Structure formats: C-alpha cells, structure tokens
C-alpha cells in the first residue's frame, strides 16, 4: 500500500505547476472547494469513484461543475486523476498539497483542541509562542473538544503537546498501575 507515496507525487506535480503560475493559495482554496463538494454530495463522490461510469462521463460532470469555479490547471489535474484511475486518492493529494504550500512559505499548521473556545488574544499569543519554538510561522486551526475536560492539545504534524486535563489524568492512572 504505497498510496501515501502516490498522493505525495501527484501533489508535488501540481505544486510545481502552481509555483510556476505563482499562486499556491488560490489552488489550495480551489482544491478545498472540490473536496467540500465531494463531502457534501456523496452521489458525486460515488459517481467519480465508480468503475461503472465511463471516464468521458466523469470528465463531463467535472467540467460542468467546476469549469467556472477552478482554474484550468486544477481542472486538468482532476481530468488526469480520472485518466489514471487515482481519484480515490484525491483527499490525500489535497492534504499533501497544503503541506507543500505551507512548507514553501515557511509556515506550519497547528491544530489546537481545547475544552472551551479559546479567546482571540490567547490564540495570537499561542501562535506566537509556537512560532518561536518551531522557528516557523505557525497557523492555528482550532477545534472545541469537550472530552478534554480542560487545558488544550496542540498537534503539529506528528508531534503533539498534551496539556489537557484528560491527558494528565491518564498519566496519573498510568503511574498508579
């Protein structure tokens, strides 16, 4: 299962095109739009994934839906995926593309989970602290997760800083074993 590797390669190809044209973030927005459409309309997803539907039909669907909404290279990218039979890896490619854009601009994404919504000024302070630690501009994504009970969990790539009450309680439980 080398699917992760494949997604990365496709994303890299698109990223190189985007770099030449000079607008990565526009492409990110468009890819997110396509992803959202696939999420919201499962029929579209199943039609595009189905081997029963003819490739020509798939392409015409894509064309009708997205020709107005995405730039030509992105549309071509979608056509290529249909030709190569790799549409099921689209989500992975979109994620890999975002990562590449972030890397290129010296930025980083961090997911911040907290038990209660974090006020704006705290978010900026947190972003600043994380940026200083990482030496990169950190962009925050926030999510409220009442399961944590208190505190927050920051996830950056495969690194995690657990400062939640839940994690602490778990640690205590572990120590008492």
């Amino acid at each position, binding site marked *: *299962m080398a699917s*992760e*590797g494949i997604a*990365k390669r496709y994303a890299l190809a698109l990223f190189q095109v985007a770099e030449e044209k000079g607008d990565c973030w526009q492409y990110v927005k468009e890819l997110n739009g396509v992803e959202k459409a696939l999420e919201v309309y499962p029929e579209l997803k199943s039609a595009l994934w189905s081997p029963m539907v003819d490739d020509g039909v798939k392409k015409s669907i894509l064309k009708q839906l997205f020709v107005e909404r995405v730039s030509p290279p992105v549309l071509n990218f979608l056509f290529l995926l249909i030709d190569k039979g790799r549409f099921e890896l689209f989500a992975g490619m979109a994620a890999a593309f975002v990562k590449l854009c972030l890397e290129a601009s010296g930025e980083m994404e961090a997911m911040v989970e907290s038990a209660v919504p974090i006020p704006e000024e705290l978010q900026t302070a947190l972003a600043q602290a994380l940026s200083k630690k990482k030496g990169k501009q950190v962009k925050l994504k926030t999510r409220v997760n009442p399961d944590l009970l208190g*505190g927050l969990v920051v996830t950056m*790539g*495969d*690194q*995690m*800083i*657990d*400062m939640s009450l839940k994690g*602490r309680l778990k640690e*205590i439980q572990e*120590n*008492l074993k």
Partner: protein
Amino acid sequence: MIRPEEITEILKKEIEDYQPQVKEVNFGTVIQVGDSIARIFGLSDARAGELLKFDSGLNGIVFNLEEEIIGCVLLGEDQDIKEGDKVYRTGRIVEVPVGPEMVGRVVNPLGEPMDGKGEIKAQKFRPIEAMAPGVVERQPVIVPLQTGLKAIDALVPIGRGQRELIIGDRQTGKSAIAIDAILNQKGKGVYCVYVAIGQKTNTVASVVEIFEKYGAMEYTTVIAALANQAPSLLYIAPYAGCAMGEEFMYNGKDALVVYDDLSKHAQAYRELSLLMRRPPGREAYPGDVFYLHSRLLERAAKLSNELGGGSMTALPIIETQLGDVSAYIPTNVISITDGQIYLDNDLFYQGVRPAVDVGLSVSRVGGSAQIKAMKQVTGPLRLDLAQYRELAAFTKFGTEELDKASRQQLDRGARIVEVLKQPRLKPEDVADQIVSLYAAVNGFLDDLALDLVQPFEEQLLEHLRATESDILEKIGSEKVLSPEISERLEHHIKDYLQLFKAARGLG
C-alpha cells in the same frame, strides 16, 4: 493490600504537585490493522525494534520503517485497535522480567504469569534483544552439562555454554531428550528455561506436569508461546527465554535454555515478514531468517572467569520433514550450532530409544567437556559401534558364514546398542553411566542374551549401590578410572554376572 486512605493520599499528592508539563511527544495514527499487524502513519522519530504503545494499552514492535508509514507487529490481540487510534513511542525495546523470581513459573513471552500463581515481583528487567558476548569475554567450553542420557553423554557430550541442536522428524523424541536433560539438572546448580514455541496448550501442560512431578520446577522457568497466540509472541519467545538465561549467565551461574522448536519460530517470523510485504526468499522465508537464529544462538556462551565464568547452554530443536536435513532452516541452524543430535525415525521404531543416530550426530566442542573417566570408556565405544554398523549392514541377510572375530564384533555392537537404550524420564548419573558402559565395552555382556542386557545393567547398579557404593562415589569425585577402581569394578561385575546367571539357571 493498599488501604483506601493511602490511595487518596497518593492521588492528593499527584493533584497538589500537578504542574502542566509542556512536553512534545511524537505520535502516529493507525491507518490499517489486522492479521496482528498494524500500519501507522506518522511517528517519524520511531526507531526499528522500538516498543510502541497504543491507546488501548496494547504494545507493538516497530518492524518496518517506510517513508511515511511504520509497520508494527502487535504483541497481543488486535481487536481493540481501531483505525485512527493514536500510537506513542516508548523509547525502549521489549523487556522481560528476569532473575530468581522467574524460577518455577510458567509465563508468556512477555514474562506475564500464566500459571495462576500470582504476580511476579521481579526486581530486574532485561531487553529481549542483546549483543552476544564478544571474543575476549568468552572461554572455551570445559565443564560438562550432563544430560543423563548415556547415548548423548558418552557419544555426543554437551558442555556448558555449548549450542547443541536436536534435530529429527516429528515423533522421534526430540522434546523428550530436552526434557530429560532438564530433569537431570536437579541439584547441579543449573537454571533451566524451557521455551515452548507454537505448541499445543495440552502439550505444554503435560511438560509442566512432568517438571512438577520430578521436582524440576524448582530451577526451571517455562515460557509458553502457544499455537493460538499471535505470531509476534511466537517470534519474541526465544529471545525472551534467552534474556532470562542471560541474567543467570552474567551473574556467574549456569543456565540451560531449550528452544522447542525453532522451526515453528521461523514459520512465525515468515508469517510476519510476508504480512509486512517483505520479499520472500527460499521456501518463502525472508532474507534475514539466518540472522534471526544466529543472533539468538550466538548469545549462548561460557563467560571468562573475569566475568564470573557463568554459562548459558542452548538446546535448539528443529523438526525435519521426512528426515530432510538439507531444507533451509535445518541447514541454517546446523551451521550455527556446535553440533547436532540427529534422531532417526527408523531407529525409533526399531526400539532404539533415544533414537540417536550415532553416525550423523556430532558435538564439535563437547569432547573437551567430558570427565576423564567417561573418556576412558568412550574411546573403545565409538570404534566398536562404527565397526558394528559396518558389519551389520554387510550381514543383513544372515550371519552363519561369518568368522568368529566378526561374529564377536556383531555381538559386542548389539550389546552396546542395548546398553545405550534408556527409558524416558530416567536420566542416569554419570558414574552409573560409566559403570554400564564399562561392562559393555569390556565384553562382560557378550555372552548374555540381548533381552537380558538391560535387566542385568539395572540390577548390577542396584547391587553395586548396595554393596560397594564407594566405587560409584569415587568415580563421581575423582572423575577418573584409576587402575585400582577399574580392578575393583571389574571384579564386582564378574561376580555379579555369575550371580545373575546362576539365578536364571544359565550356568
């Protein structure tokens, strides 16, 4: 027992000391699980062989490191693991509890008790993978490890620190030899570890029962990786046993580790490797199956005196298919070990038990680990047996036309074979063995009927013990057959032979 208020105390302390520590941890996410392996995304800092911890409390070992993905084998059942679960590093490799607390216990390959005798409060842990002692840390094998089996102690002697392979088809008594060897260590200061790999639960239960019945559990640990357990547990079982043996060795004691059997171990490793999509090689085993066994067996050693002079003897067992010793795993293990005891199916059904094929069995270092008295009787023994085998093959169709010398040779050989037979679970002391063999190689049994050889041998020893037990004691303590002892022994055998014959009306 902990009292409730103590628990409250501990909790209170933990809460009072609560300081949010900002600690960055590396984690991964399960993307696929099944067949007792998991594929994990992330965990970019993980190292090969590292122990991983899953959310559910289960552990795993890093097996494959790929660009984005880690292949991990699970040390237990995979049913509690879901896609998306988080996985954390531990920074350690798998460790098992070791030391005197393990003696007398039946444990699984992780060192957890399986015998219902309660928690094991081990003081020490050892990683299951360790470097083998180097050249300067070793000394030659010089001390014998008595198995209590005449056929082995006389002809393929094993020394402490040696690796002797027991090889043969199914149902030829491979495990029986190893079990007898363990039973014979009673009172000899050798700690034993019996590693059962991929065996049926009832087989392991009966082995434990034998150990308990004969008092062998007092110095033995049994590690059971049962046939229905995950292949990962079968894979780590011999390393766990080795770690437990090493603890004794590095503390200046002697250990005996039996791996029963390494064929199943290789199969479990093959299963894991194929599931991990490593390329299959010969017989579908992965490329590193030689290293799998060499790194295990190389850890058996006799340490130098500076390091305490401890030893770990390894008795790996390999099952062959229809006597095919040139299959992949048998040839590998034969080339790693210091000799092999080859058990023959035909011999077994001819009633020669233990069915040791004397011609194919060798011990590459054990000769120097025999006591002198044993060497004195086995010198002629080997020669007699070799000549007997040659003649016996030649005279398959009748012995009428043979000259007297040849016929005598045949008679002598047949009696030696008879003396080398031994029932299960009856290991013999080395002095007893020497007396029996002495009688056989010096021709005292030549005119006894074949079926009387074993009863005579038994009664002779009984008689000797009752009347002149100092002969046995002297052989045991002096470890050499002095002319004086030889003479007395000869005299005694002759006397008793007459008594024995008279009692049966044989003139």
